[in-house]
């Protein structure tokens, strides 16, 4: 109550004070004559109004922080997109065993997935002697009995594995048994007699159906040290390693596995497509008319065959590595 009275008194005093000020504070009487010469045309550009409204809105709403934050987000987003683009994250790429990077969607040398026939033109290699090197030459259409390249999901899997996933994403859900694994191990064993241990290891390798790939020994018989590189079937790998414990004291042991499923699928699919292309080129050989066309097809056939052989070789090597695990066993006698 007392506060209200005081406030009312203050307001009254202020009102009286400023009423008196109003009587004293008078603008110069020639104000209009000063202003008039400065009154030019009052037409303003539309953008004056537009920017004025925006700036006032920002100032009134104290939106500096929001504005700065928004700008920061935009800068970060643009930078992120740029980085993603620079790193090729926009298009999923796969790298096969040969180190070639190519798009996920598999297509090679004019043969594409689905029912699309071979491309109607083909670039001749530079070594072409017909003088048409580097030029596009017409290629006859596919024969009626041509079978298009099957999709990756339909490519015959290795070792009777039912169904191979088409993409890397699907590879992630493959059963452990369906995966192609290369296993390697390194074991160092302290034994009483080196020569005896080596004999036992050789016998154990033969027992599991493997073979000794490499062996070396140094020092006197019964002492010294020896190194054995053994290849044992993948399914006996763990059992064989366990059996090594009976030879002596395991000083060091390391096991490594490499999942090569994706490389394997890539190579198989590539091989299938190359074979189809080879068949098609073979069929073209009998139908080509001119010499230059025949030469072009033969050169392409040579290249495809070389690719087929190379891919088969890589697949064979990969198969061996998968089927037979590699175990390097080092034995030594403490008396050495």
């Amino acid at each position: 109550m007392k506060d209200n009275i005081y406030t009312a008194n203050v307001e009254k005093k202020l009102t009286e004070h400023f009423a008196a000020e109003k009587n004293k504070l008078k603008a110069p009487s020639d104000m209009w004559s000063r202003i008039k010469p400065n009154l030019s045309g009052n037409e303003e550009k539309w953008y004056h109004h537009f920017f004025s409204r925006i700036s006032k809105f920002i100032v009134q709403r104290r939106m500096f922080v929001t504005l700065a934050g928004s700008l920061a987000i935009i800068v970060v987003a643009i930078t992120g997109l740029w980085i993603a683009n620079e790193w090729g994250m926009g298009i999923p790429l796969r790298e096969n065993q040969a180190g070639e990077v190519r798009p996920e969607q598999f297509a090679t040398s004019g043969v594409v997935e689905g029912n699309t026939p071979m491309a109607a033109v083909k670039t001749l290699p530079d070594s072409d002697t017909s003088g048409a090197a580097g030029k596009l030459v017409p290629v006859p259409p596919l024969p009626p009995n041509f079978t298009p390249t099957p999709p990756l999901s339909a490519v015959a899997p290795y070792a009777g594995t039912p169904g191979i996933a088409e993409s890397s994403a699907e590879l992630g859900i493959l059963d452990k048994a369906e995966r192609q694994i290369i296993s390697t191990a390194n074991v160092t064993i302290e034994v009483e007699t080196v020569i005896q241990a080596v004999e036992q290891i050789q016998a154990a390798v033969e027992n599991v159906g493997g073979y000794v790939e490499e062996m070396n020994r140094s020092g006197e018989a019964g002492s010294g040290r020896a190194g054995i590189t053994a290849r044992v079937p993948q399914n006996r790998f763990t059992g064989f390693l366990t059996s090594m414990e009976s030879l002596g004291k395991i000083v060091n042991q390391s096991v490594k596995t490499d999942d090569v499923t994706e490389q394997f699928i890539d190579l198989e699919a590539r091989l299938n497509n190359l074979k189809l292309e080879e068949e098609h080129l073979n069929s073209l050989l009998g139908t080509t008319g001119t010499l230059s066309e025949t030469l072009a097809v033969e050169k392409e056939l040579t290249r495809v065959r070389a690719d087929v052989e190379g891919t088969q070789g890589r697949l064979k090597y990969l198969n061996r590595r998968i089927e037979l695990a590699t175990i390097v066993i080092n034995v030594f006698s403490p008396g050495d």
Partner: protein
Amino acid sequence: MNDSEAVSECQAGNREAFRHLVENYKDILFGTAILMTGNNAIAEDMVQEAFISAWKGINRFQNGRPVKPWLVKILVNKVLSNRRRGEPYKISLDDNIGGNQSGPGLAEEFEVKDEVGRALDKLSEEHRQVVILRYFSELSLEEISAAMGCRQGTVKSRLHRAQGILRELLIEGNQ
């Protein structure tokens, strides 16, 4: 001619119609300017600039709305911009409050300055501006908030705080 008719004429490009607005509001603008700046010459400049800006922007003015708050808002913007540029506006003993009017000089004015004037001098700049716009320019809280570019709640709290300080200085201090 009333304000609305004058604004319509101005919007049509009639400069003479603008004289009506200048004559009607020059005193309230000048008083507000001199109370805010404390400098006669600067206050005159501010008022002139405010009227010229008003003329330039009169096409944007929504006719029918009160003219005084609009003009005071332009003036306050001019004064605050002038301050941000760091130009001097503090009161000087050599200045002559009241301009060309016949009346007491500044020294004499200070002698007769009542306790309210002295109390107002002790307020902070923000509080004093709100009090001037409320009690001298007779703007509403909403109009003050638009003129000063701050929220209405801020104006309300500043006014309340200023009143509290003045109460202490004017009433409770005398007891």
